[in-house]
């Protein structure tokens, strides 16, 4: 037997070790969204504050963040001040009020500020199901043609905004380029 063949178990061990070591730093909750690069699902829902009906057509023509939130969701409360700040900077955010009651939701917006252009009332959770939402908050980056381009799970904060801002700016630039 050739001498080098003695090293085969060792090589396999190193490869396996590398594989498992790498897996330690992967996030098993980071599931690729099935909806990226697909058109925003159809919906026909009343808004929370004014009560007028909105459809997926209202997302076209501009870049939007679609943020799924609820008053029952603690991380949403953590995220909220930063969304208000983003809205002040001119980021257009549309809310999806997910399985929530109207009165507490309106109160929440009154007390904590309203970063949303409008929030649609998804009390039954149908739109959220079509969006593949598994919990709140989740935020979808929707381009000016109404196509979902990125999905962020969990709260958006100052700490994780930098890479997301790049996605946002790319979409804004793309929209500008398209209209010229």
């Amino acid at each position, binding site marked *: 037997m050739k001498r080098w063949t003695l090293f085969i178990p060792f090589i396999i061990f190193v490869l396996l070790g590398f594989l498992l070591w790498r897996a330690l730093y992967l996030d098993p909750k980071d599931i690729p969204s099935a909806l990226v690069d697909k058109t925003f699902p159809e919906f026909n829902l009343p808004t929370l504050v004014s009560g007028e009906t909105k459809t997926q057509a209202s997302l076209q023509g501009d870049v939007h963040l679609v943020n799924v939130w609820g008053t029952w969701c603690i991380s949403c409360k953590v995220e909220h001040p930063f969304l208000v700040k983003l809205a002040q900077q001119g980021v257009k955010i549309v809310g999806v009020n997910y399985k929530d009651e109207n009165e507490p939701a309106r109160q929440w917006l009154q007390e904590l500020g309203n970063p949303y252009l409008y929030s649609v009332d998804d009390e039954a959770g149908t739109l959220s199901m079509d969006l593949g939402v*598994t919990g709140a908050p989740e935020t979808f980056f929707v381009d000016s043609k109404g196509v979902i381009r990125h999905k962020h799970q969990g709260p958006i904060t100052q700490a994780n905004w930098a890479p997301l801002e790049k996605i946002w700016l790319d979409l804004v630039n793309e929209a500008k380029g398209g209209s010229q």
Partner: protein
Amino acid sequence: MRYFVLFASILFSTFSLAIVDGHEYVFDGENKKENEAKAELFNELAQELRCPKCQNQNLADSNAMIAGDLRRELYQQVKAGGDEQSIIDFMVDRYGEFVLYRPKVNAMTYVLWYGPIALLVIAVICLIVIVRKRKQQPELDEADLSEAQKKRLDELLGKDKGDDHV
């Protein structure tokens, strides 16, 4: 005979999971046979679809909010007469392949599906090669040794000049 039945029932009992809130999912249409088929499909899918929020629980087993919502959706679709494939497609369209405990066979999952078989084939080939090599090696006999080798063997075995008292 009694023991045989007992033994057989233990041996062949299928592992099944209780569905959380099971009482909510009643199939009470007019056709009894159809109801049974629907209930069976519902149970099968609830056990085979993974809760998208949980790391390793199926829809039947999880009490996460999203699992409850999806069980209800599944129930409604089965009740309305949806077939297995359309329901699976509905779930995959929204939550991705992650929800399938039995992933589809495609370029991304070839390793998953065929990897174990490939490993088994490789192992069998290795085994055959090793066994054949062993067979090819001529069996050695003490008679084949040279004088010097015989002497060394005797030394190692502790034989002193024909004195076999060891």
